[in-house]
C-alpha cells in the first residue's frame, strides 16, 4: 500500500507465484493521478483454484504511504501482519514500524522502494524458492540491477527484524 510502484510490485509477486505453480489472483486499486500514495496492490495465491479474489483480510501488508493507510482503514484494520514505514506512515495499531525508506535511501535504492517492500513481504511469506523466481522475473523487466538490490535490502531488513 502506497504510491511508489505498488502495482508493479504486485505484478512481480503475482508472476513469481504463478511461475512457482500456484493459482494466483493479483489485483490493485489505483487512481488516475501520477503522484500520490493512495494505491494498493495485492496477491491471493493457493494450491487450489481461487473462488474469490476480493478479500478484506490480508495475511501480510506492507504500508509505504500515509494516504493509503488513511483511505483503506478497513483493510488495514483487518490485516494480520502489518509492516509500515516508520517515517512515511503514522503508527499503525499492532503494526511493526521499520526504517524501510531510510535503509533504501542509505543504499541508494530509494527509487525502488516498491522492491524493498516486496523483499520484506517475500521474506515473511517464506514460500520455498521465491527469491530465485523473483530474480528471474526481475531480469525480464527494466532496471534489473536496481530492483534486485532493493529487493535484497528488503529481505535483509525483514530478516534483521525477525518477523
Amino acid at each position, binding site marked *: 500500500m502506497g504510491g511508489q510502484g505498488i502495482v508493479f510490485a504486485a*505484478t512481480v509477486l*503475482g*508472476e513469481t507465484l*504463478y511461475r512457482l505453480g500456484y*493459482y*494466483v*489472483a*493479483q*489485483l*490493485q*486499486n*489505483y*487512481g*488516475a493521478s501520477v503522484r500520490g500514495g493512495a494505491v494498493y496492490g495485492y496477491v491471493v495465491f493457493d494450491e487450489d483454484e*481461487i*473462488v*474469490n*479474489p*476480493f*478479500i*478484506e483480510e490480508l495475511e501480510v501488508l506492507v504500508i509505504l504511504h500515509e494516504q493509503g493507510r488513511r483511505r483503506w482503514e478497513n483493510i488495514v484494520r483487518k490485516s494480520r501482519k502489518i509492516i509500515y514505514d516508520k517515517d512515511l506512515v503514522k503508527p499503525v495499531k499492532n503494526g511493526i514500524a521499520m526504517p524501510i525508506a531510510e535503509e533504501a535511501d542509505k543504499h541508494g535504492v530509494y527509487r525502488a522502494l516498491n522492491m524493498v517492500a516486496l523483499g520484506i513481504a517475500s521474506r515473511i511469506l517464506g514460500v520455498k524458492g521465491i527469491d530465485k523466481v523473483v530474480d528471474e522475473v526481475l531480469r525480464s523487466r527494466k532496471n534489473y540491477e536496481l530492483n534486485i538490490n532493493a529487493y535484497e535490502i528488503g529481505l535483509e531488513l525483514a530478516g534483521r527484524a525477525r518477523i
Partner: protein
Amino acid sequence: MTERLFLSGNEAVVYGAIDAGCRFYAGYPITPSSEIMHLMAKELPRVGGVFIQAEDELAAINMIIGASWAGLKSMTATSGPGFSLMQEGIGYAVMTETPLVIVDVMRAGPATGQATKSAQGDLMQARWGRHGDQYLVVIAPMTPQEAYDLVIEAFNIAEAYRVPVVFLMDEFIGHGREIVVRRGADKLVERRRPSDHEPPFGSKDPRIPPPMPRLGEGYYVLVTGSTHNEWGYRDVHGFETHYRLVTRLKEKIWGNIDKIFKYKVYGDPDARRIIVCFGSTCRPAIDAAERVGGTKVLRLITLWPLNYDKLAEELSGAEKVVVPELSLGQLVYDVAQVYPRNKMRVVNKVGGGIPIYPSEIIKALEA
C-alpha cells in the same frame, strides 16, 4: 495448442478474440480498457489482421462495421464514456445486421466518473442504449479465464445471428491478473454467405438469420440504416416493411433465446436462499454461499436476451433473494419482474474501486 498463462482479463480477451478468428480491430484508448488495444496492436499484425487506432469512438465503431461487411470478424473495446459515443453505430449495426463484438470494460459513471474504478452500471445501457426497437446480445464473463472463453462464444453468436454482441466486463476483470488457459476454440461459427437469389435482409422464418454477402465479391447489395426490404431497398414510408423488419430483428434474437441464453448455478442448487448476480460480483457471492451454506447462486452469463421464464423457475419457492451489484441497482429490475420486492435484499456499492465483500452478502442473506 494449450498454453497456461498469467494474464489480465484485458489481455485474455485479446487472445480469445484472435482465437475466435478476429482479424480487425479499431479502437480509441480509454481506461480501463486500453490494454486490449495495446495488445491488439501487437498481436493482430502477427496473424495477418489489421489494427487501427481510430480518431475517436465514433470512427472506431463505424470502421469495424465496414470491416465486418468486408468479411472480417471485427471487434472494438472501450469503457463507459466511449461506449456512449458508440451507441449510434451499434444501432446501425443492429439495423444492418452486422456481426461485431464490442467490449465494454465498465468503470464508475456517469460521464467520466472514476476512470480506474470498477462498476457494473452499464448493464441497462448495453441492452437499451440505442433508440428504436433494437435487440442485441449481452454477455458477461466473471474471470480472466472467462474473458478468454466467452469472447469466443461472443464471436460465434455474432456470426450465427448476424448481430452485434456487447461483451460486458468490468475493471476488476480487465485489470485483475489470473491464470488463463489458452485452449483454443472448440468450435468456430462463420457467417453464411448467400447463394444466388437469396435475399441478404430477410428470411421466411424470422428465427433464421439471413446470409451475409461479402463486399467486393461481386454481390450487389445496399446496406442502409433506414427501413429496408429483404433486398436492402429503402422504404421509409410504409408500415408493412418497417413492421416486418423490426419484428424479424427482434424474433431473430428472442426466438432463439433457448440457444442464446446461458446461466450457471453455484452452491446448493436446492437452497431457498438465492443470490442473483452477473460478472465479477458473482465471485464474492459464490464465496459467501460456500461460507454459510444453504445458498444457491444464480449467475447470469447472458444478460440479454434474458429468459424471464427460466429466472422465474429458478426463483420459484425462494424465501429470500439477494442481488449484489456494483451499481445502485439495475439487475434488480429483472429480478423484480419475477419475484416480490419485499422479499428481496440488495447490496449496492459503487465507486472507489471497492468490491463487494462476501461478509456484506452474508449480512444481506441473514438479514
